[in-house]
């Protein structure tokens, strides 16, 4: 029941992911960060098998860092996407990673870009993408309301529309979502959209 989706705006890209960590019928936590910051200007939102998700995104992150140390310049978003797809493809017919990925990045010469990479190593460069059951609702909302060159405010409005749809129409909708943005100033957390906050931990009696 995980949801990850993303879209490209005027000079930025946004990735949104739910933040529930679920095991069978138990919700372990509701503030899991599924959007890995690969380097200063790249975001990788991932959904799927929890162990594979953490392992694979960290592996990509460390390889991106290694490239930068070896070559003195960062990997481009396109190169990162192709590297990621290559790793998924190599593992596919041996020991596949069950992870779906939305990669967003900002390159100085190209601007913002978004890549859809699914667990069987398909790669598509897109303006909007979504994974999971939430994708039925998110993609429909984005198809209706998305325009090229949206401002951050307009894009967040659209993101909120998608989240509202997912929350109201999906039977086991994740309660909380995390939004991260990448633009010329870098990749960073933008906002949380919480409908359930963890109960405050009682302080021990003095």
């Amino acid at each position, binding site marked *: 029941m995980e949801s990850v989706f993303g879209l490209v705006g005027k000079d930025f890209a946004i990735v949104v992911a739910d933040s529930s960590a679920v095991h069978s019928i138990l919700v372990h936590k509701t503030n899991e960060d599924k959007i890995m910051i690969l380097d200063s200007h790249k975001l990788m939102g991932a959904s799927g098998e929890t162990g594979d998700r953490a392992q694979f995104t960290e592996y990509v992150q460390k*390889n991106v860092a*290694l490239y930068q*140390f070896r070559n003195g310049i960062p990997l481009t978003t396109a190169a990162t996407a192709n590297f990621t797809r290559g790793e998924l493809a190599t593992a596919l017919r041996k020991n596949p990673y069950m992870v779906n990925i939305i990669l967003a990045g900002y390159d100085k010469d190209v601007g913002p870009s978004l890549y859809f990479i699914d667990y069987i190593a398909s790669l598509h460069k897109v303006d909007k993408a979504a994974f999971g059951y939430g994708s039925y609702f998110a993609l429909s909302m984005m198809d209706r309301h998305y325009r090229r060159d949206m401002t951050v405010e307009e894009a967040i409005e659209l993101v909120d529309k998608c989240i509202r749809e997912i929350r109201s129409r999906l039977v086991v909708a994740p309660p909380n979502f995390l939004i991260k943005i990448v633009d010329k100033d870098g990749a960073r957390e933008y906002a949380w959209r919480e409908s359930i906050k963890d109960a405050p931990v009682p302080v021990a009696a003095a």
Partner: protein
Amino acid sequence: MARYDRAITVFSPDGHLFQVEYALEAVRKGNAAVGVRGSDTIVLAVEKKSTPKLQDSRSVRKIVNLDDHIALACAGLKADARVLINRARIECQSYKLTIEDPVTVEYITRYIAGLQQKYTQSGGVRPFGLSTLIIGFDPHTHTPSLYQTDPSGTFSAWKANATGRNSNSIREFLEKNYTETSGQETLKLAIRALLEVVESGGKNIEVAVMTREQGLRQLEEAEIDAIVADIEAEKAAAEAAKKAPATKET
């Protein structure tokens, strides 16, 4: 079929490993490199032998970073250095991937030294012909460190050290003049030490400074020139002060 079972580094009758000692000779022919550890700053300064006019000097970087918080300079065979540096960079990321923590300076020094030692005890290979100076700040304690490794695979921590050409004279200078310094003073000490054996001028030395907050910063030629000019002025003032009392007496 090639046979790699014959060792190249074997003991001599009087207990020497000549290949390792010859490797140390190669280091002694390499460019001079100095490292100085301050309380909040660590400096590496390396001699730049005259660049051919047509060469793009930016492609010859003598001080490299292994990770955000670790840097390395070396003296000796530069091609061997590329191999070691590459392995060390991979190890830095691999460690972070498994342990979720950046390496300590000691760990990566131990790793590099271990690699150098392996090549003195394997079939069909020769030792790496370089000594390294490794600097960095430990991830949680933030203590600055300076380590040196050599072709035999030994390593140790230093307050200040030199390797390569004329390293003995530089080390003597450092032993005489080392004090606990910080910031700009550490930088000046390192450059003064290197200027003992290198022609002065920004285009003959490459200098990099590491601080905890900013990581590794390579100095521009103009900045080095300015500091060198400062040092020369201080030297001239000291000379003048020495001579002045003598003239008063006559």
